[in-house]
């Protein structure tokens, strides 16, 4: 059954006709062309599809598109301010926190959610928070460093000097 859903995506109002079973991630990728949000599994385990819905991190494969009616969605495409990267994006680049890049959008969206709730996370807290985001390339080592650095910069501290 087709339904119309209206929501705000990356600050812009959008409307789309979807099936009842259409997932939010499918709406974003297939109808709105926002392919930065990825699908890495079918059991809501991997976190490649994390977006923010009304400011909260959500796995966009766990939400039907129709459930996003009237809500505000932020995806990786709108995290930077124009050409100026967000400090968390900068921190991912500076710390080599990505390799193939597939998990990266979800990681960054999750990291932003963590820092919103815990502006100064410890290594342990970062590792435990990342339970819901799988990465197969980095061993998480540099992702953890990046999130700690990104959080520091977001608190107003100077970015760490580029590693050696």
């Amino acid at each position: 059954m087709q339904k119309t859903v209206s929501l705000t995506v990356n600050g812009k109002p959008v409307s789309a006709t979807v099936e009842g079973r259409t997932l939010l991630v499918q709406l974003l990728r297939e109808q709105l062309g926002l392919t930065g949000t990825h699908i890495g599994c079918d059991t809501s385990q991997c976190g490649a599809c994390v977006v923010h819905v009304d400011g909260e991190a959500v796995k966009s494969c766990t939400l039907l598109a129709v459930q996003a009616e009237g809500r505000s969605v932020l995806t990786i495409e709108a995290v930077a301010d124009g050409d100026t990267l967000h400090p968390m994006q900068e921190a991912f680049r500076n710390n080599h926190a990505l390799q193939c890049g597939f998990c990266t959008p979800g990681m960054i969206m999750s990291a932003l959610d963590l820092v919103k709730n815990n502006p100064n996370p410890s290594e342990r807290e970062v590792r435990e928070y990342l339970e819901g985001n799988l990465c197969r390339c980095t061993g998480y080592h540099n992702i953890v460093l990046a999130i700690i650095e990104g959080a520091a910069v977001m608190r107003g501290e100077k970015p760490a000097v580029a590693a050696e």
Partner: protein
Amino acid sequence: MSVIGTPVRRREDYRFITGQGTYTDDINRLGQLHAYILRSPHANARITAINTSAVASAPGVVAVYTGKDLAAEGIGGLPCGWQIHSKDGSPMVEPPHPPLVTDRVRHVGDQVAVVIAETLAQARDAAELIQVDYAEEPAAIDPVEALKPGASQVWPDAPGNLCYDWHLGDLAAAEAAFAKATRIVRLDLTNNRLVPNAMEPRAAIGEFDRATGEYTLYTTSQNPHVIRLLMGAFVLHIPEAKLRVVAPDVGGGFGSKIYHYAEEAIVTWAAGKLRRPVKWTAERSESFMSDAHGRDHVTHVELALDNQAKFIALKVSTIANMGAYLSTFATCIPTYLYGTLLAGTYTTPAIYVETKAVFTHTVPVDAYRGAGRPEATFLLERIVDLAADELGMDPAELRRRNFIPKEAYPYQTPVALQYDSGDYFTTLDLALKAADYAGFENRRRQAAARGKLRGLGIATYIEACGIAPSAVVGSLGARAGLFECAAVRVHPTGSVTVLTGSHSHGQGHETTFAQLVADGLGVPIESIEIVHGDSGKIPYGMGTYGSRSLAVGGTAIVKAMDKVVAKGRKIAAHLLEASEADVEFKDGKFTVAGTDRSKTLAEVALTAYVPHNFPHDELEPGLDETAFYDPKNFTFPSGAHIAEVEVDPETGRVTIVDFTASDDFGRILNPMIVEGQVHGGLAQGIGQALLEGCIYDKETGQLLTGSYNDYAMPRADDLPSFKLSTNVTLCTHNPLGVKGCGEAGAIGAPAAITNALVDALKPLGIRHLDMPATPERLWRTIQQHRSPLAAE
């Protein structure tokens, strides 16, 4: 200042951190249709009937095809790229591997039919209307059981389910050494089956251009030219000139995206039939039952030592699971990428290895990060630790006593390889120091006081990378060359495009290769573009696997740059009215030696493309050079990894307290990227040791670990931060001195972790643990050893 050896930040990152990467599933072509593959729910069943008549009228459906439709058009099977011969000289059994089956399914997930519709949802819905009548038969799942009389037979042409029975080494010499040994250590072990699980599921889009007759395949591949060759020549019979294969951004591979898969052929063929693009993307559960798996060995190993604790002989007997079909490179993994590594870092003079490859009703098994070398390292480093334990010797000292001496290179092993360089002593010392080996027993006591069992495990490894000298692998059964190709194109105003046959799917080639070219041509890194992954742009390529990209692909770039400089020198000599022999090239400038007269590379390039004043008699215009590089030998990265663990005997839970890796990768171009490669490899190696195991029900052949709910992927809170260091001995046979770093972590870590766990549990009398050492397995093992009565 040279950018070589500096941690240049990755140039590819911007698109990934802003969500602008272009992975195959991100691509949508005009008029695109969607394919859904109907897969077998059974491990072994005869197909008595397929009725697709209800499908055609389902909403949105454009076509439905079965194996009979493909067979009717002469579509070939997926080829195997390496022929192994058995001990008796007979060639391996090579069963057919059609993209869609015709009369029988041979593993859960086998491809039965494809439905193509306007939307994916329509294709999936319609697939439910296909009626397949299966006559189920018993399955052969366990590779040891599959070899036994009475086991269900996977292929009529492979009696006893045997694909080949291969061996390497001198059995008589090994047995003679065993006869005079003062100690023999024996061990039975398994190397657990793994699912590679690159985060991006496989995907493919086939397209056909009616105007030109050209096919294009977008695919998640580590080697698009190889796919073009295999699919074009063997499966679809499309000449290379009419087939373009593009591997755009690829979200990790780890070996699983080397192979030519059925879905690639299906969408390409269907696109030609239907005259519309056809897209297929795996769901993760499909990945689990259709991506090639890794490892899956059952091994018996015996090590003979003399009275000086020197290893005098090694005998290894392995059963390797091939799965139901032979994947592209499956057959070389438990043979020439495994048996040849069994000297490890040691001087063992006599080695004999035999491998029986077995068909089972499971997904094909092929290379996964490390591919044969983790299996070799695991058994060697386990048996060495057991030997140290039985001798009451320090395991570090036993290793040192048997290391190949620093002055022994080039070192010929008894299993065919010749190591060119290495220094295992220094590498081990670096690791021992970083891990505070000397202070370990104190830490063990402190842990014991807290009720925890603490252990430390060492693993050293050697790997053969830079795959591979074509003539050598050809003599061993490879059906392909394993060179690499690069083109260096200097544009008229001095910017540079590099076309490389290596493929980057996380390795950072766009950065490392640009560093290489910036240094070689004296051009700013911003003026260099690295292009990969498109057979329509790149002259040729064998792709990325076996830690080969820098050693082989990077060397091809060096060779192409050498040609550019050689031609540029002639042009500069002409412009400067000097003798070519007097023109030097340095920092991007051609200079007449001893003068200040010079021409920049950009000036020379402009002359090459606007050849008004040009040595036409001697040279052609343009400054665009291609090189193919075939390596002279493998490269031999090596290292020492040390794990320190604590086990909670009440719960079986393991904490990795410390993980130290000291590696020798030869020259390092970008230390940041190299460290990242090691981190990722370690995570996969630790995953194998502690968490990951692909489990089939041994009766029904159902895949019990078919999703991330059941298959334990390493998560951030399962892993420690890693302590890394490097020791550098240069590769002697490539101009960069590089050895490769991509697989090291996955090779060293399983043995280091398992050795640490066994060390921790030694007080209970435990001498070996199979992987993965999950809390449940550890807890049961601990309970069994604590009290014989608790064993049941």
